[in-house]
């Protein structure tokens, strides 16, 4: 049924450029609420709330959209949720306190940051087993994967490095020192750069993936706000690499950055303590999780305007949208 509806909508799009956006399901993990809120990207309303394990944070979805993976941090596990029944259908051996992870481009592996053990755990999704563990710096958190799937970048929050990991060899090849408390790593789709946020340092380091050097350090200034309140966390970059969005934590804003010039174009006011971001597959919206105001904000990517804020569960943390 859903496929038919999607096809119908696609058909409409082809003939009517000004047609409404496609409806995608948006999944938000609520850290304090122990739940995942499901929203419809068209109505921007919550359509379902799924009860999950303790302290859900990192959240991602299988390439076919059938399974949702949620880090239940305080249960030391990753829960697998069937997106058609909204039932928890299994768990993955995550190692202790899983917080953030990233799916390999082929959808077969999950790379998990285990903060307590200074490890990155590689999980085979089909076998639901651990392939290997890679020692990294103190408090691994951010996880990015290159579009070709060959490199994983992990950030360690106390060591303050971006560790480049060769996926085949399961070895660190390069360490790039960045500013304090790196929280997130995001590759450009052409694989040329990886952007790393530093929450306490207040910057984004743009790392050249060929030379493994920082080619640009992006800073932020918001009139009337103390510098300490600007704490970059989540980053998303459009497929064409032209626009980047950075969530600025207690600054309650998302920065829009020119992907070529690295210039901050605007600060978009969202809710309180904004941490993570996700695009809809058509890149019409980027959705921001506002932890302290218990809502998510839909931002229009084209105009950079906030369109709507929708209340979700308690302390929304991560967000993922179903694939195309």
């Amino acid at each position, binding site marked *: 049924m859903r496929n038919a509806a999607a096809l119908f909508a696609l058909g409409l799009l082809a003939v009517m450029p000004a047609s409404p956006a496609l409806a995608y399901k948006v999944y938000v993990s609520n850290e304090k609420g122990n739940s995942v809120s499901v929203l419809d990207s068209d109505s921007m309303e919550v359509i379902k709330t799924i009860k999950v394990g303790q302290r859900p944070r990192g959240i991602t979805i299988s390439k076919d959209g059938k399974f949702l993976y949620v880090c239940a941090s305080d249960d030391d596990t990753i829960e697998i949720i069937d997106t058609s029944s909204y039932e928890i259908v299994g768990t993955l051996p995550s190692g202790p306190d899983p917080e953030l992870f990233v799916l390999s481009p082929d959808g077969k592996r999950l790379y998990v940051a285990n903060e307590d053990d200074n490890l990155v755990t590689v999980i085979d999704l089909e076998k639901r087993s651990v392939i290997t563990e890679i020692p990294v710096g103190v408090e691994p958190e951010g996880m990015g994967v290159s579009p070709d799937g060959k490199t994983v970048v992990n950030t360690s929050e106390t*060591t303050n490095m971006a560790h480049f990991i060769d996926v085949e060899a399961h070895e660190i090849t390069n360490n790039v020192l960045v500013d304090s408390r790196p929280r997130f790593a995001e590759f450009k789709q052409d694989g040329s750069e990886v952007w790393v946020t530093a929450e*306490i340092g207040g910057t984004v380091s743009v790392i050249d993936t060929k030379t493994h050097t920082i080619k640009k350090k992006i800073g932020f200034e918001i009139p009337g706000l103390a510098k300490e309140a600007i704490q970059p966390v989540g980053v998303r970059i459009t497929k064409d690499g032209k626009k980047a969005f950075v969530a600025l934590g207690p600054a309650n804003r998302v920065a829009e950055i020119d992907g070529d010039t690295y210039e901050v174009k605007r600060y978009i006011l969202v809710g309180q303590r904004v941490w993570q971001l996700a695009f809809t597959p058509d890149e019409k919206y980027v959705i921001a999780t506002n932890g302290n105001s218990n809502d998510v904000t839909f931002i229009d990517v084209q105009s950079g305007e906030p369109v709507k804020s929708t209340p979700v569960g308690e302390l929304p943390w991560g967000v993922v949208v179903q694939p195309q």
Partner: protein
Amino acid sequence: MLVIVLGLLALLGLAAGPAAAFADEVKEVRIAYVHTLERGRITLSVLDQPPADLGLAGLRVGINDNNTTGRFLKQGFLLEDVPLKPGEDPVPVVERLAASGTHFIVTDLPAADLLKLADAALGKEMLVFNAGALDDSLREQDCRANVIHTAPTYTMLADGLAQYLVWKQWRNWFLVTGSHPADKLWGDALRRSAERFGAKIVAEKEFADTGGARQSDTGHAQVQRQMPVFTQDVPDYDVLVAADRSEVFGTYLPYRTWLPRPVAGSAGLMPSSWHPSFEGWGAAQIQNRFEKAAHRRMLSEDMQAWTAVRMIGEGATRTQSVALKDIEAYIKAPEFSIAAFKGQKVTLRDWNLQLRQPVLLGDGRSVVSISPQEGFLHEFSELDTLGIDRPETSCKLQ
């Protein structure tokens, strides 16, 4: 008596003899922890007994953290524990450490001993971190250019508490101070804070230490009768603020006051640089790491020591050098900052080398609030609403 703590040597796959050094290519940083061995002092509650490895456990976790990062840079960190007997002269220790190539000393010493140590270290290639003493004098008239303070001061703690009490509209205080010198310093700081933030001390009493055992078999019966009588006959007040650093009466106050009023200061709601239950701002990670290593919860002295070691580690990482002059210059530079699970970067006050930091307010079970409170503004940093600020300082660093 020296104990070399080997940190991650074994993990690093290096030879670990009693005087082990890292392999040739690994550059080492030696850190000594000099502290007075007065652990196990008697407290009113047995739950407040300081653990034997107070502070030291924080250093060990910091050393492990530095060594994990050091793996990527071929830097290794070594810890030497140097306990002093109360009253023992720290000068020979400084001489010996200097001769053995130790450039960094982290201390938890009484103010007078710390000054002796700092003055002995002057002119040697050494930098001292005060991770224990709260005395404002060490940051004011007795400040030293070779001493960095990761411990907060009495005035910082008092201001953090006062901001919250004022925010709660508990402006009328009944101040009870102990009769020991440390109690008086703490009482002075609280008095200053009251004036600074618009609270009023409507009554004040001294609780004299008349000696005697802290615990006795039926002591509770006497305490139950003694404390209401002691807190009687004062004008009405909103909150009783106790200054009892010496563990003579503070713990006995809550639930026993003549009027039903909350207690703060040295009992009830207490300000501190850290709290064993605090898990916000990513702190769950350091708490878990600490508990795994030390088999107990992390206390303020542990956090202050951890922060000192992390500052040294951060300096070594950022400058890619283990030389004292490079690390010291990095830490003392105006742009220096470090992440220490305090919700924002913590930095040094350049006028007295005091670490700016938020103050946690806890009741023994959980964190009730964190100061600075919203609305207490400052032209430079809101953290400078805590403690003696630049315009008031009497410190002349040299």
